[in-house]
């Protein structure tokens, strides 16, 4: 599958997909989108990179790091990073839920407010976004961890 056509297409498509994923994620509170969709789309972008360039590409080509040749897929640094990511995601989601309790509100209480940014105008800030970041991380980390170990088979 690592043909030139796929690679070239991936080069063009992946950034677009990532941007779309980010916009879907951020706009989720008011338009179609949100943490889950944004996360799955991000995973889609990563999968495209893997299909076109292989699992080590991100390490070697993008981050310019050496890949440890030994060890199984489970000890692979990328997989370990995904594991950390989904743990972190659950942590964020839980923490955002507990934060409300500090203010005497129930678990997972969400607050929102409107702030005025000069030039850009009125913006909304919702604590639900933090919770959504957690969900996003869980989805991205969890799915990519599964896909990379299954793909390595």
């Amino acid at each position, binding site marked *: 599958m690592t043909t030139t056509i796929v690679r070239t297409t991936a080069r063009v498509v992946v950034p677009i997909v990532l941007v779309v994923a980010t916009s879907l994620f951020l706009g989720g*509170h008011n338009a179609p989108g949100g943490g889950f969709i944004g996360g799955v789309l991000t995973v889609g972008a990563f999968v495209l990179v893997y299909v076109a360039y292989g699992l080590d590409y991100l390490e070697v080509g993008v981050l310019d790091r050496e890949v440890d040749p030994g060890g199984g897929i489970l000890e692979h640094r990328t997989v370990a990073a995904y594991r950390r990511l989904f743990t972190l995601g659950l942590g964020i989601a839980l923490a955002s*839920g507990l934060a409300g309790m500090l203010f005497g509100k129930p678990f997972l209480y969400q607050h929102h407010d409107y702030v005025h940014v000069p030039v850009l105008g009125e913006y909304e800030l919702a604590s*639900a976004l933090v919770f959504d970041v957690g969900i996003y991380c869980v989805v991205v980390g*969890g799915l990519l*961890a599964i896909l990379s170990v299954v*793909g390595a088979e």
Partner: protein
Amino acid sequence: MESVFLAVALPFLAVVALPPLHRVLGDRVGYVGAAVAVASFGLVASRLGTTGSGAVAWVPSMDVALRLRVDAWALLFALLASGIGVLVFAYAARYMHGKPSLGRFYAALSAFMGSILGVAFASDLVALFLFWELTSVCSFVLIGYHTEDAESRYSARMAMIITVGGGLCLLVALLLLSVASGPALGARTFDLAAMLANEGTIRAMRAALSDSGLFVPVLVLVAVAAGAKSAQVPLHFWLPNAMVAPTPVSAFLHSATMVKVGVYVLGRVRPLFLGEAWTLLVATVGLATMTVGAVLAVTANDIKELLAYSTASHLGLMVAGFGFRTHYGAEAGVFHLFNHALFKAALFLVAGVVAHEVGTRRLDDLGGLYRDLPITAAIAGVTVLSMAGVPPFGGFYSKELLFKAAWETGLAEGGLYWLYPAVAVGASVFTVLYSLRFLSAFLGERPATVEDVARPPVALVAPPALLAALTLVTSVAPGLAIEAVVGDAAAVTAVEAVDVTAKIPTEPSGPALMSLAALVVGAAAYPSVDRVRNGIARFEAGSTLARPTNLYDWLLDEVEWASDRLDATVHGGPLRTHVTWVLATTCALVLLGFLSTGVAVPPTGPLAPTAMILVLAVAAVAAVAVAAAPSHVAGVLTLGILGFMVAVFYVLASGPDLALTQLVVETLLLVVFLLVIEELPAYYAELRVRVAARDAALSVLVGATAFVAVLVAAPDQGLSETAEWYVNNAVEEGGGTNVVNVVLTDFRAFDTLGEAAVILLAAASVLVLLAMRDRGETG
């Protein structure tokens, strides 16, 4: 009331603290446990003579709370549990010296003491059940202390199965009581104290239970639960097996406390159930246990086994006492619970000393120990005489009360009821016999096999000595104990006025003659005890009825076999079998649910728009194509078509979020399939008609179930009340105009959190499965 809550909580706090402390203090951590027990004992004792109740809200919407109630009966039981707890902890600190995993041991012992205190004070039915089961769990851990020993594991499992099985009966009984409290007390409650508050509430509860035909079933369930816990015939066999536990455990759990939980609860609910059915069941079971236990104790050769059967026998005595309707019955049950705790805990500790210093527990190898262990022999003398019911020792008074109760019942009812006093005397004869047999270890000549008996350390002798001293005090001045707590406690378990008397009878009356007969016949039969033992052994060998353990083993084997068969059928290995069972069961349950609740499928609404019909038609064609696909690639691609058609359907049905998700997930799925497709065989295996027909039928069933479920779940075209609320409040409460997302992150964020956990679980499972395979494990 805070002191009582603290008394229950302290042992549980100690559970957390003891294992780390064990690492610092080593064996001496037993004294920390003793200190905790002293604290609990002090807190409980400070409430002596008072009553009261307190509650901590738990599930307010269901009126479940951690309700504790103090009365004399609870105080008596709690004082025994914590008091003997102190001695057992102190004894164990020395006895268990150098044994492995003591952190776990003391933690379990402490948790056990806390649960017993919980049972004693709990007045909420849910809390009572939880504490009750906790005692079973702790007992399981303690009996199975020698985890590497197969016998220990077998006994622990047996105790667990019997007592937890009994606990399930109790759960049903308690729930039924709660249901009955609705019509009886005006509102459904879990508060046992409210049900037993006064004569009026008791009468109302009885009427409510009788009206719904539940009176006898609840009575039987409670009796079964108590019988399982308190080792009553025919569920008595777990108790002797539990003797594989270390001796301090035997003394604490299997003589003084846990086995008495059943008796305690019987005493607690006695006012509610008292009547003919109650007497026929409880008194009969109690007297049968008293006899069987005493007879088996005579045959026992191991002193711990003898004490175990004797414990079952004495528990039978208490149960029988509570079974009789007369107030003497309540007095006998309560007073004997008190006496038995003192003398039996002491005797177990004595057995521990003998095993520790002599090295054997076989009665045939023991004798003449009074020369080497004079203090221990003195302790044994006092407590054995109390156990045998010899006047003027404590056990005599409570046994005399039982005789009175049996005698009165015989007088009042006549006819076959005279069997009760007769059986009670018969059982007492055997009690005297095995008591003398136990004493023979200390008297007479020392056999040649016993040599080098070391002096027992003070730490091992002091706890039983204290108990023996208390037994002596109760013997000389029984009024002290009765005055302090026993009298009031008996009043709680009785409906009429009680007056616990403890006098040595001076004139010939029925009960006095019964006592005399038991003692004289027992003592006279002792010289020929070996002939009696041989006779019993012959009967035992010839009858499976006498060996319920065999039945238990057989049942367990059958259950294991059936479970293996079921597992092999449902879970045989191929994913296809597994999926078939799961899907078929789900469909059956869902459809059964619809059928039993009688929901009607609503009339269909207007026809869907043409575009939707077209999209769905394509999806249907794709679905058929998936099933008919000749290769994996074709299958995956047609599956993709199906998925994308569903996405288009979502767009048409104005669900942009769903459509987006479906599109992205579908794309990902395609890629994943393409990744693994090279690993699969290129073409499907030869299809068998039967399998294909079964799968087709299952598919149709699943589809039909989903169809019906959707029709039933979304009956009308408009928005439901909930949906409308979400739409109206999304902006104001959640600050977002995308209702779906606001629901996900705000209104129902807890669900989302759960789903995130599911993703995590799936990822972790994949990683673990692969890691296990890499290590060569297949389980």
